[in-house]
């Protein structure tokens, strides 16, 4: 594919996106409007993440794409192929070998390091959206730091259910200022957001927003003193590699409703199995 520029987008567009990224890094957690382009894949399928990746990728980069923690889910395959074709960059499934990782719904289990960039695909960047549908209102609420509505929502959850009934896309506060949507990662992943050595960039294409967390940013999941935040996962070890501290997918394995639990992070699980770890369901 020689008819397109490196990583598909033209340089002017990349420059516009880089400016938004820099602004986002300068104001952690603030949603920067950007002139999102129509991409050759549908809105809602990672166009924000793809535009951010296109803007940060260099020919020397090694690129990894995961969806639900896995490198081989169809949309991850599709996005990886897109950058192989349009940027010709090296790709990998290994978390530690990658310099840029685009993700949907997970943070890799293996801690990221300085120099790596984690790019999130974001469907709805506005953490207040389902409390207030109007963009004009929510922007005002952010500028006035008016987050009472969010606390009331969390409190009502506790009053009604005994727990905060948000299990993914769990809202966080960044450096004591902006309330931010971490994208629909399970709340199990929330503690990894803070103090991360890597740069975290969030791209929402359809909603035309970019936001960012520079390395070692303070990120706190919203909670109450008497109902502290709890990162939860299925209470099982991985059936394949025996890991007890990784996030698990539940897989139905027979007609009788039999099930097993496996790591959602395929690279993490494969590496452990290769190192000889064995779960109870492994062959």
């Amino acid at each position: 594919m020689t008819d397109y520029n490196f990583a598909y987008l033209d340089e002017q567009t990349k420059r516009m996106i880089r400016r938004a990224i820099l602004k986002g890094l300068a104001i952690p957690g603030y949603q920067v409007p950007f002139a999102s382009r129509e991409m050759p894949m549908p809105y809602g399928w990672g166009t924000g993440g793809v535009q951010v990746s296109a803007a940060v990728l260099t020919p020397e980069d090694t690129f990894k794409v995961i969806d639900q923690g896995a490198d081989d889910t169809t949309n991850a395959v599709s996005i990886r192929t897109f950058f192989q074709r349009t940027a010709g960059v090296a790709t990998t499934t290994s978390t530690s070998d990658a310099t840029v990782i685009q993700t949907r719904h997970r943070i890799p289990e293996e801690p990221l390091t300085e120099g790596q960039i984690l790019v999130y695909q974001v469907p709805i960047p506005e953490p207040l959206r389902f409390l207030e549908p109007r963009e004009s209102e929510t922007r005002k609420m952010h500028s006035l730091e008016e987050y009472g509505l969010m606390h009331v929502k969390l409190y009502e959850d506790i009053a009604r259910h005994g727990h905060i009934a948000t299990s993914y896309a769990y809202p966080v506060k960044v450096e004591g200022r902006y309330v931010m949507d971490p994208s629909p990662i399970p709340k199990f992943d929330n503690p990894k957001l803070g103090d991360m050595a890597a740069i975290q960039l969030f791209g929402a294409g359809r909603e035309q927003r970019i936001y960012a967390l520079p390395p070692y940013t303070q990120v706190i999941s919203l909670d109450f003193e008497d109902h502290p935040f709890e990162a939860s996962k299925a209470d099982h070890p991985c059936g394949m590699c025996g890991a007890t501290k990784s996030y698990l997918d539940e897989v139905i394995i027979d007609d009788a409703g039999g099930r097993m639990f496996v790591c959602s992070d395929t690279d993490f699980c494969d590496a452990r199995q290769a190192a000889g770890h064995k779960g109870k369901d492994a062959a």
Partner: protein
Amino acid sequence: MYVAVKGGERAIENAHAWLAEERRGDTTVEELSIAQIREQLSLAVNRVMAEGSLYDPDLAALAIKQARGDLIEAIFLIRAYRTTLPRFGASEPVDTGNMACDRRISATFKDLPGGQVLGPTFDYTHRLLDFKLAADGEAPKAPTRDTEPGNVPHVTEFLNREGLIEEAPHDDTPPPDLTREPLEMPAERALRLQALTRADEGFTLGLAYSTQRGYGRNHTFVGELRIGSVPVEMEIPELGFAVEIGEVTLTECETVNQFTGSKTEPPQFTRGYGLVFGQTERKAISMALVDRALRWEELGEDNVGAPAQDAEFVLYHADNIQATGFLEHIKLPHYVDFQSELELVRKLRREAAAQQVQEAAE
């Protein structure tokens, strides 16, 4: 034994191959040519150009062929292509008063300078399936006559002379560009019109219809509807003057709306405006009605809370490429989020059950 699902890559390739085969259909039936689509499905081509925001009948026809006739998919192909094109500059504003009209009707005046021209319209056809078409699609030659020379003036200009209709003051401010800047609220009228002209026809039609049924009613007359071609001129920097670079077919609709006056405006007629690429009449009329409904604030009207009055609601949901992408993304895997919901629901149920047992014991 459980084996993790692999082979997404192969599955995708095979799916694409199957799709291509299905697109072609039965190979004993002759293949459609781009020219056939362009010439014989021209209203589909027009819609794809309008909502794809790219005036190129051949590319639109190609997109329709590739999309197997799914017009939203075709619009998507055009948009994705369009966004990669370099931008050389902007044309001069087109002068629709100088349009070579194929059709021009007014619902407000029985006769008027330039006349009423029905043009190639479905309006008074009886919607009876023409079984003859199934066997033989040749059409008899339509009678012709010479066009009357001279401009076809806009109906609203006549009303304007009497001061009966609101002024549309000349404004040279460069309009914002929806495709180069993020859509932010509040959106001025030029931006709203840009969004509406590429908005989904069905969504725009539904909103326009809702205003007619009372959700933000602003009784509308079609002051004028015209379809025809206009020259496109562009100033070439090296020349220092504008030269004609081509022609586009446009549909323009100007509505005249009753207005009893408000705190700030005297009683007069007000305007709604629709301008769309190609012969796209339903869309242009719908656009004009929605444009008028969105103008409640600048005219000092009451916001009755109707959907068509709500600029944020209308503009953020009118783009079918955004809408279809987000709607269809729920087909993508969500096992991670679903798993976290499963854990939560199980936990809440466990606790609720335990509480019931405890209450029963007490």
